[in-house]
């Protein structure tokens, strides 16, 4: 994976003029997720949520998930960040949606980058934020579930 970004190198004659300039190096799919990010927003009464910041660049994202029968049935995000952060967060939500908790927990930042067809090397850390946000939201969901079970359990004990 570590060498994949080199595939983004284009010879001068191959350069798409629209994507040259200091902001180049993003491929069409990344641009698409940046200009039309999927699953943007928040939700009422999420089953799990997290706000996560990337101290290295000041970026931030918020993730909410809805879980039914151990499956992520809905996911929403908001992101304050660079194009890399927005696009990787968007792709992460697409990948997580419909997956079971266990499947979603296995999504890595590399998976997101591969799904996007690569991002510039200096933008790789952005994909980590999306995935960390997802994992924290799942943890939040699991903690809430555990709290509910514990409460039931305590109540059960006191009843007997």
């Amino acid at each position, binding site marked *: 994976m570590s060498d994949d970004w080199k595939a983004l190198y284009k010879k001068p004659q191959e350069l798409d003029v*629209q994507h040259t*300039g*200091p*902001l180049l190096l*993003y491929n069409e799919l990344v*641009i698409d997720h*940046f*200009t039309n*990010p999927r699953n*943007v927003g*928040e939700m009422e009464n999420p089953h799990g949520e*997290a*706000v*996560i*910041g*990337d*101290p*290295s*660049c*000041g*970026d*931030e*994202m*918020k993730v909410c998930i809805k879980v039914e029968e151990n499956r992520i049935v809905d996911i929403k*995000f*908001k*992101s*304050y*960040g*660079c*194009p890399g*952060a*927005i696009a990787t967060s968007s792709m992460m939500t697409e990948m997580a949606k419909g997956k079971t908790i266990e499947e979603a927990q296995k999504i890595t930042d590399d998976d997101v980058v591969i799904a996007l067809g690569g991002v510039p090397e*200096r933008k790789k850390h952005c994909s980590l934020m999306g995935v*960390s946000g997802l994992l*924290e939201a799942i943890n939040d969901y699991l903690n809430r579930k555990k709290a509910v079970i514990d409460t039931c359990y305590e109540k059960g004990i006191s009843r007997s």
Partner: protein
Amino acid sequence: MKKVYLDHNATTPLDPRVFEAMKPYFTDVYGNPSSPHHYGRLAKQALEESRAVVAEAIGAKPEEIIFTSGGTESDNLALRGIAYHKERGHIITASIEHHAVLKTCKDLENDGFSVTYLSVDREGRVDPDEVRRSIRKNTILVSIMYANNETGVIEPIAEIGRIAREWGIPFHSDAVQALGKIEVNVEKLGVDLLSLSAHKIYGPKGIGALFVKDGVRLSPLTTGGSHELGMRAGTENIPAIVGFAKALKIADGEIATYHTKVLRLRDKLESDLLNNLSQVTIHSAKAERLPHTSCIGFASVEAESILLHLDLKGIAASSGSACTTGEPEPSHVLLAMNVPIELAQGSIRISLGKENTKEEIDYTISVLEQTITQLRTISSQWAVEGNKRYNLT
């Protein structure tokens, strides 16, 4: 796709009249100005005529102009030239300088020189009294830029010049952004050294000049032939020098119309954005600024995302100086002005030029409004404001 160039502080297009003036020096007049034969003499004539034009434009004598490869080299020659000549001592500069000055100063610190980096006020202005207070017995140079490349703030150079002269300390100013936009006169400014560049005034890249006042001693940085009064060895770039002189002549003649035009466009841009969007900050709005530069901060969005949206719509702007793009750090100029880091990260620079039209600015305003609104819809900061936040990393 519509294309709008709004990054004139990075560089400008070549004026066609400049290109025309340069052409014969690529083809017909190709002699080396150091050669005694007539090929050389023709080139030498062009060189000295150009030098006289540049000198006159800034109120200097021809023998006070040294052609260099541009602003960065001029800054290096001024700072290192003085420092290496004096061998040791103290330099006063400002925290908002271009990297060509700041990094050179850092390097000189490694060489044993001491440097004071003056802070600026919220508007980005250097306080001349601070300069006075920072002067030490061993101060060998004061270097303060004439106008800032990111905010367009015009520094009180004449006042600082008086202080430096009072103390007999050489005074350098980087006037790369000011040239061609406001009056640049070395006598009125009281400078001993002044950096200039051609490609910010519709001239060619790779050419600039350093004004060195009579009597100011420098150590040259390149050695070789006795070109440029022994201060800068190397065969002179005649086509570029001719282009520089032509560009400066044109800029001088058109400065009044230029000023009115770009100022009107900037006023329109800034007032529309302030009226139509909330939480917009025009940096240094209260300071005296170059007429074409606007540094604008948008709360809760990040500059790189704004710039990519603009780029996709054909609009070229920048965040901070071009050199800063690609680094995650926000602009050192805005941070020096105590702009909160989040706002600095959401700040872009728009620098207008004489070829920009009202239609282009209207288009830019509408694209910017859409972009900011869309990015704020996505932004967690815009939504989270006032809510409980927790940081998990």
